[in-house]
């Protein structure tokens, strides 16, 4: 009996089996490394270089200039504050909208359900910038919505829904809600009709069924929707840029400004690294709290 045979009989993965596993994982690892790890490492390194007015950064230097910039500039603090607020606001709204939309789609009969889900998915087929210009067309003072409302006599003067916080939030919602809907719907579709019937049978009307049976079942989907919304919104760039005003500056906008306009790469890198760190910390802390309070993903 060869060594590999002996090993597989004993339950130990044989040498050839292990090499096979490595070989299969290699392409993915290479992709991950090349596209993600290496650039992130470079970014991290860049954040520890010295700033200089003569160029992007001082080659080969090691300095805390970038982080000092982040720590000492009040504007940067304001921007971080706004970014987090924006993230939380959009996430809260996105989760609510996603849950209601997915619930409606789940309860809907055949044709309506296809229409609702199709609508959510369809918006994913267009690129972000094009989508956002569509939002402008709909929500601008002379856009579709305001025209309709004025025509119907509901409002006297147009609602200001772009070039402000409302605009940024609406635009960001338009980006993340489709993913939220799909995440929640995917979980809802696994809910056994019998459980709903049992709840109705035991005296729960539809709103209570939603609270007692549907929502608990949808928790994993809601968590995913929340995570997607939060990470995306804290890193939001096109939505606040195109539909917000100067006061709706997120860290991503600041980074692009530092990078491309001010040509201050250490500062840009430092802001980026701090943003990533904040998001990761929030996620870890948030998930820990949820997980300890019950089975979130189970």
């Amino acid at each position, binding site marked *: 009996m060869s060594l590999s045979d002996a090993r597989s009989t004993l339950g130990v993965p044989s040498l050839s089996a292990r090499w096979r596993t490595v070989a299969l994982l290699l392409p993915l690892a290479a992709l991950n490394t090349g596209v993600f790890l290496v650039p992130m490492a470079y970014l991290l390194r860049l954040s520890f270089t010295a700033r200089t007015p003569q160029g992007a950064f001082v080659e080969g230097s090691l300095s805390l200039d970038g982080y000092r910039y982040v720590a000492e500039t009040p504007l940067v603090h304001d921007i971080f504050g706004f970014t987090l607020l924006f993230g939380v606001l959009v996430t809260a709204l996105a989760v609510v909208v996603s849950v209601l939309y997915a619930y409606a789609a789940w309860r809907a009969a055949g044709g309506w359900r296809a229409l609702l889900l199709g609508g959510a998915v369809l918006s994913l087929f267009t690129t972000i910038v094009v989508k956002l210009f569509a939002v402008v067309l709909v929500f601008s003072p002379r856009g579709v919505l305001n025209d309709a409302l004025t025509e119907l006599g509901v409002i006297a003067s147009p609602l200001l829904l772009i070039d402000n916080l409302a605009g940024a939030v609406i635009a960001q919602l338009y980006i993340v809600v489709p993913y939220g809907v799909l995440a929640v719907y995917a979980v809802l579709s696994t809910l*056994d009709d*019998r*459980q709903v*019937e*049992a*709840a*109705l*049978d*035991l*005296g*729960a*009307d539809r709103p*209570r069924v939603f609270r*007692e*049976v549907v929502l*608990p*079942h949808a928790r994993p989907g809601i968590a995913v929707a929340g995570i997607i919304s939060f990470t995306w919104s804290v890193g939001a760039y096109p939505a606040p840029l195109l539909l917000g005003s100067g006061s709706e500056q997120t860290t991503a906008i600041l980074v692009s400004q530092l990078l491309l306009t001010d040509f201050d790469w250490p500062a840009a890198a430092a802001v980026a690294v701090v943003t990533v760190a904040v998001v990761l910390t929030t996620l870890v802390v948030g998930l820990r709290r949820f997980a300890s309070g019950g*089975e979130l993903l189970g």
Partner: protein
Amino acid sequence: MSGLELDGVAVAYGDTTAVKDLSLSVESGELFCLLGPSGSGKSTVLRAIAGFETPDRGRVTIGADTVTGAPPYDRDCSMVFQDWALFPQQTVLENVAFGPKMDGVDRETREARAREMLELVEMTGHESDRPAELSGGQKQRVALARSLAVDPELLLLDEPLSNLDRKLRETMQLELKRIHDRVGTTMVYVTHDQDEAFTLADRMAVMDEGRLVQVGVPERVYDDPADRFVESFLGTTNFVAATVERAGDCPRLSTPMGPSFEAPIDGDGLASGDDVTVSLRPERLAVSAGSAPAAVDGGVSARPGGSGRVAATGAVVETIHRGSDVRVRLSVGDAELFVEQSAAAAVRLSPGDDVTVEFAPSDATYFDAAGGRCR
């Protein structure tokens, strides 16, 4: 006041009518079984009572309330589902306390009530378990406790034991009977298993293709079937195709078994040459070895060749041993019959043996060509 009343209820799904003009009355406190094959509409009837289906016609009354059209949560009945439908994210105690919670009962009272119910179904000690940790039989008990916790006027059970193995099913049947005796709630139990219906029912109804075929006490329905469908659905029997030789009162029938005999029925509407189906239950057939008419029927000896009895000769084709009994297949004339013998019977038959089969015409049941009962 009856526990449940259905009056001319009809339920249709698109083009098909699942339930056709069904009227039924269940007494308060009765354990009533709805028996029928798959697709007979029995589950639809139950769902119409519970409120998950709205009848196109007819009226449903639970106790003193007419509930047709009312949503499930407004009806004073609760249902035990076939797959139990326990809430997976809640503990056993929370599951059982769910109904009272929906009624607005405070936590302490409803938890006490839940514990009481769990004790009734012998599931004390499992309060903090989750449904996923329970076996099928345990889930069944919890589902029952949950439905009883709301103290319903009517309890509906939709084939609750069909997902359990045979031994467990039999144990649970007796458990259900015990609980019914103790609690006294009117129960409507749907099943396709005739043995189950016989074990549990105070009264039962047989359903076929959306209509109620016969209602009565189990023994009565077995002994006095309304039509051929009921006869064939309950237990096992030998159907022999006979022809009317001579019409009139007590018509003479010829059978492929060999002998002709007079059937103790009034023969109205039967003409010479008409087809009649004769049903011979195996327990009514006396089989003896050899061609002599001395019958030993599982230990009880019958009067040999007595007047009025029909005897025919044949041979054993096959014996199928089924543990405690043996099914013996016989070829009698041109007909194929079977009987059941205890495995401990004194005389064991083997393939190829000559046998004599005897029965009394009054022990057989007769059906016309359309399947209706001839009396």
